[in-house]
């Protein structure tokens, strides 16, 4: 009876491990497939080209070197740093250049990173208050160096 119970437990654990492994593999495969999809690659390239066309020379130079660029908020003059990405990729910087908090907003829909960053730039540079009104904010935690909402 004890041996049967042990066998059952072992079988269950093995089945669980197999299921988790298969699930992880399928997610990784799906991600790889979408990243290598020529349609997605073309979309990303087109969006990045559009972004670069609309950046100032200084912003473009910064983005190509560091994968981020700075914008100045139209209403408060606050400096924001937009990092390459689509989510929680905007840092608000204080007058000393230090991180104050992070912001997350973007265009509705599943758009490429270039399109998202261009939308964030235009929104902050032309109507900062309206953009931040819809955004989610994350605060810095000096004790841990992490963020929370």
């Amino acid at each position: 009876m004890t041996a049967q119970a042990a066998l059952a437990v072992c079988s269950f654990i093995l089945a669980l491990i197999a299921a988790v492994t298969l699930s992880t593999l399928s997610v990784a495969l799906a991600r790889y497939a979408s990243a290598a999809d020529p349609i997605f690659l073309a979309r990303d390239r087109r969006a990045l080209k559009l972004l670069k066309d609309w950046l100032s020379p200084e912003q473009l130079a910064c983005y190509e070197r560091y994968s981020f660029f700075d914008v100045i908020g139209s209403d408060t003059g606050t400096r924001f740093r937009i990092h390459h990405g689509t989510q929680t990729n905007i840092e608000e910087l204080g007058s000393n250049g230090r991180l104050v908090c992070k912001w997350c907003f973007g265009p509705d829909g599943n758009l490429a990173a270039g399109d998202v960053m261009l939308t964030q730039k235009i929104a902050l540079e032309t109507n900062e208050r309206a953009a931040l009104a819809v955004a989610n904010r994350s605060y810095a935690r000096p004790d841990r160096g992490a963020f929370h909402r």
Partner: protein
Amino acid sequence: MATQIVMDRTGDTRHTFDANNLAAVAKAERRFMELTGAGFTAATRTGPGEQRVIRSFDPTAEETLFYPRLVGG
């Protein structure tokens, strides 16, 4: 030729039109109204790295960009 650039899941879709062609301009204006009515924001470039948001159709704008409404992430 003027261009209307609409951000979408393909990156963007571009519509070019001759600003001297009245029918083409009317069609572009209809597109502008439809997109802004659907929540898109329209912006034109005013200089290197500079832009302004426009609320009404500008037939003289060489390039008008439309992006979807903003949402919190």
